[in-house]
């Protein structure tokens, strides 16, 4: 099924595409250096951090707005901070972290450029993962239904959805070019979020991961 952004906060609940979530974690895990210092923005209940601590022995810190999710991180042995992610990053010196991860969070931010640029200040690498709203099934969905995209991931009607600022791969590429952000690595995955997509990713990829560095 098509992949679009979740209606719920990232990783707040394990919704249906469980194996897609795992694929996401595996790609990020491949990019993360062992024993590095990782900051996870919008860390939810800490699934990704727990995976990275276990698989890569990283030192992880998460930021989330919700008490229950931070409490869940604490209970599983993780460090988590309840509060605003930009304010959090402002409290740290340049390059304090090795990597900032912003996975399935970027579409819910008030100021996505501000967050990504601040992340590039506090870390040498920034990983951004997002669902591609330019994916062909999402385009057809809007074209033929004439309504806000709804599918297995995006289950709620507009009046029950959180504010979202959906983006496409082309949007993100434009953003990186405009802000002179270097794309160190990119991974575009087809609608199954598993198979690499090498052709026309803005149309054919359901999910995108970017590894950013300052130019």
């Amino acid at each position, binding site marked *: 099924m098509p992949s679009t952004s979740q209606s719920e906060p990232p990783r707040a609940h394990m919704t249906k595409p469980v194996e897609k979530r795992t694929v996401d974690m595996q790609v990020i895990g491949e990019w993360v250096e062992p*024993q590095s*210092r990782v900051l996870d923005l919008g860390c939810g209940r800490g699934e990704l951090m727990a995976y990275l*601590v276990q698989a890569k*022995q990283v*030192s992880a*810190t998460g930021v989330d707005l919700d*008490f*229950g999710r*931070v*409490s*869940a*991180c*604490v*209970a*599983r*042995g*993780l*460090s*988590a*901070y*309840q*509060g605003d992610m930009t304010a*959090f990053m402002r*409290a*740290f*010196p340049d390059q*304090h972290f090795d990597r900032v991860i912003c996975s399935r969070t970027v579409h819910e931010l008030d100021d996505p450029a501000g967050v990504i640029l601040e992340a590039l200040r506090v870390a040498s690498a920034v990983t951004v993962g997002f669902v591609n709203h330019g994916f062909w099934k999402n385009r057809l969905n809007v074209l033929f239904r004439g309504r806000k995209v709804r599918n297995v991931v995006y289950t709620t009607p507009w009046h029950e959805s959180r504010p979202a600022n959906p983006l496409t791969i082309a949007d993100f590429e434009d953003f990186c070019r405009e802000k002179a952000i270097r794309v160190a690595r990119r991974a575009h995955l087809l609608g199954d979020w598993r198979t690499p997509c090498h052709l026309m990713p803005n149309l054919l990829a359901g999910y995108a991961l970017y590894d950013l560095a300052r130019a």
Partner: protein
Amino acid sequence: MGVIRASPPCVVAAAPVECPGIMTDDVQTTTAHHPRHLAGDDVGIVRARDFTHPGPFTFKSGQVIQGFTLRYETYGALNATRDNAVLVCHALSGDHHCAGWHSESDAKPGWWNNLIGPGKAVDTRRFFVVCANVLGGCQGSTGPSSIDPATGRAYGTHFPFVTVRDMVNAQKLLLDNLGVAELHAVLGGSMGGMTAMLFAIEYPQFTRRQIIMASTANESAQAIAFNEVGRQAIMQDPAWNDGDYPRDGGPRVGLAIARMMAHITYLSDAGMDRKFGRRKRESAGGESYTFDAQFEVESYLRHQGQSFINRFDANSYLYITRAIDQFDPARAYGSLEQAFAPIRAESLVVGFTSDWLFPPEQNRAIALALLRSGKRASYAELATDLGHDSFLLESAELYALIRGFLERPETHAVDFAI
């Protein structure tokens, strides 16, 4: 050995638990009239003990006393490896009686009874819980109201100046005496959070986890100002007499006013509005052209002041508020990051939205400095309207957070200290 003093019976508790007027229904777990101390998740009847350190004790100020006593309570049992101890640190007006009941006729249990007990968030089936009245206090530990062996009279203002570090050092001697090899955790709210923080700094090899709640790494000018008004109320009372007053006398008016004012700072505008609003006492009738207490909030505060003077020593109030004002590890160690550098404990900091005495921002600052120092630290914030005293809140969310932190498996992470 411990003796429970005759006057007054130890219904001593941190502020909100104390008065039936305002927060008791939020804080107490049981209200029925059957034997509450027999409740399954309650530590039951407990007894205070005294630990006496026989040798000289040097304060941070350089002043020395020849030995001291700490009154304390313990719940649960120390394990074979002697590393399951949880030290509970009390706030300004609190004491060692943090859980259970001293007698079947007690009106109230210990001040953190909702948190501590078999099966509770601080589980006494699992942990050996220790709580001591601080050095400089007046609930059985050595302080300004104790007798100076050199003169045979109360120390009064001749008692050495007490700092939070002195309180910590004295409690470390107690824990050594109890055979505690390592603290599983140290936790406390308000001044108790400062005590916990300093335990983790001063005894890094000894302290594995710390929970700091509704606290600060250094008081704001506003908080110091409130303490100063309290001290002035005491010191301007002629009965204070430069700190030299009989045990049953002293600046009772000044102390009561100090307490009334301080108590307002422990609550919040919204919380007081919810509890009292503009409600008037029944006896006040309609229009009343006197200065007798008319509003419920007035009689509540008067009651707070009156009950406080029966259990607290005015000089101890001066000493302990001074210790809180002076607390400033950033200044003592150069910066907060440097102060935290030796810490090996994992930390949990908890702030409360309506706390305007030690507001969320000051609690966040502690967590951020710990993280900047490369420590494992978390920050969580609860939305409440109970003000500074929110850390005593009866809240399933708060219990789950604390239990989750205390019971999570030990992590042996790489030390990223800078």
